[in-house]
């Protein structure tokens, strides 16, 4: 009988289940990062196109979500550090070789324009909400925040400066939002030891996925028919690009070395196959694409359904990539 048996002394309770190093918090953070990057991209892009008044949801209202999820994402990220009391060490070092280092700097940098952008449109947001849904409980909170800001010492002066240079800042924020979106993928792709992640296409793939979730969210929140229709078209385009990138991800891995082929097998017959193809490619990309095509060709479909599917697909995609990536590796036996 052919025998192959390995026993490792490392099978100690705290050592080998080191899959737990990165878990759901990282996946959630990557989702928040991509979503915020997309929201800020659309807000600044359509502002520069001069559509601030015709597309109030994308330019004025939706970007208020961005700073909230960026701050929330950063907080859960710090909480996830095992030595979190030393997190400030991140900001004493600039290490261009480490994606996590420049990611931390990008995240801090984009937080400033994201907060100021939503503050500069706080009054418009209140007005928008009052017109659309006067019973919304958030209105009271926003009014309170708006009054508070006016009382603060330096902030009104900063806001004047911000509004004066808004065009320049918009160009800068677009650039930063793309860096943030790509970073969520590059963070994973920098690890040679995890062959599933070790593909340069992960950066553009995560960027596209993040922007597509943002488009779905804006489409869901907007009540303007033409704005919705446009985001439907944008989403369709982004889904096509994502499918294209996913095919290329597998093509690249299948033509790679043994470790990469084995990593691809996790999704092509391995334990993540059903989850990936049914939940992410099926429910998260193909079904919403079909629903949006039907919507655009005249069928009446509640917009919440494709939007929800795209958002869930984006979230699950990050969960599966984080967990499956850690299941791939080199043969070290």
């Amino acid at each position: 009988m052919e025998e192959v048996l390995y026993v490792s002394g490392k099978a100690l309770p705290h050592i080998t289940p080191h899959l737990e190093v990165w878990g759901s918090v990282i996946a959630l953070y990557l989702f928040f990062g991509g979503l915020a990057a997309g929201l800020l991209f659309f807000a600044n892009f359509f502002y520069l196109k001069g559509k601030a008044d015709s597309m109030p949801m994308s330019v004025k209202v939706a970007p208020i979500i961005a700073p909230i999820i960026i701050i929330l994402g950063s907080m859960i990220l710090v909480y996830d550090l095992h030595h979190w009391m030393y997190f400030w060490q991140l900001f004493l070092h600039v290490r261009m070789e480490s994606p996590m280092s420049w990611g931390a700097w990008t995240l801090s940098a984009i937080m400033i324009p994201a907060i100021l952008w939503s503050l500069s449109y706080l009054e418009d947001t209140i007005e928008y909400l009052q017109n659309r849904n006067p019973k919304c409980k958030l209105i009271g909170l926003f009014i309170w925040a708006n009054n508070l800001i006016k009382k603060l010492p330096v902030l009104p002066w900063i806001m004047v400066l911000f509004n004066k240079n808004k065009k320049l800042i918009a160009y800068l924020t677009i650039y930063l939002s793309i860096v943030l979106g790509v970073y969520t993928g590059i963070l994973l792709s920098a690890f040679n030891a995890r062959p599933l992640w070790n593909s340069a296409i992960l950066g553009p793939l995560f960027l596209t996925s993040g922007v597509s979730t943002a488009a779905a969210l804006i489409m869901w929140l907007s009540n303007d028919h033409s704005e919705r229709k446009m985001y439907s078209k944008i989403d369709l385009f982004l889904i096509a690009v994502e499918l294209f990138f996913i095919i290329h991800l597998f093509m690249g891995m299948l033509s790679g070395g043994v470790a990469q082929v084995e990593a691809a097998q996790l999704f092509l017959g391995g334990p993540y196959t059903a989850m990936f193809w049914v939940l992410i490619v099926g429910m998260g990309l193909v079904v919403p694409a079909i629903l949006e095509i039907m919507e655009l060709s005249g069928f009446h479909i509640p917009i919440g359904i494709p939007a929800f599917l795209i958002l869930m697909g984006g979230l699950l995609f990050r969960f599966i990539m984080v967990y499956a990536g850690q299941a791939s590796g080199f043969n070290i036996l």
Partner: protein
Amino acid sequence: MRYAMAMDTRKCVGCSDCVVACQTENNVPLGYCRDWIVEAVKGTYPETVQMHFKSERCMHCDNTPCVRTCPTGASHIIEGGIVKVTHNECIGCGACIEACPYEARYIHPDGYVDKCTFCDHRLAQGMNTACVDVCPTSCLIFGDLDDPKSPVSKALQEKDWYVLAPEAGTKPQLYFLK
């Protein structure tokens, strides 16, 4: 100077003395280890079954993905190519653990990342590493690769050797003698 270790898979009996010596020398917390034994049994029973042991630890690679991905510079290389972690610079993000193909790092219960240091505190006093000194079969050989007369240089010249996952491109410095 380039420190390296060779490990004779033919001499090792898998007693785990190196593991215990390391845990004692470096105060490694209970349930964790910086080095470990891998036992492999291969072949067709009963004619050609072979068993061999490997004592593994951080490979102190020449091309270090752990140092490259560390966001704070806590993971760094000291003289002799030894890879070390500065505890109060480490934020415990786990990037180096993801980056290591050999799974040589672990998170210490205090939060920082910990790993083999080639006992640099012992080397500074002219001693060998704890695992090398304690090995009852002398299967662990340590020394300076830049010195052709060092025990490790001689062992690598005299015997056939291999390294783990050379395709990862990390140029590991723990050599296994066949």
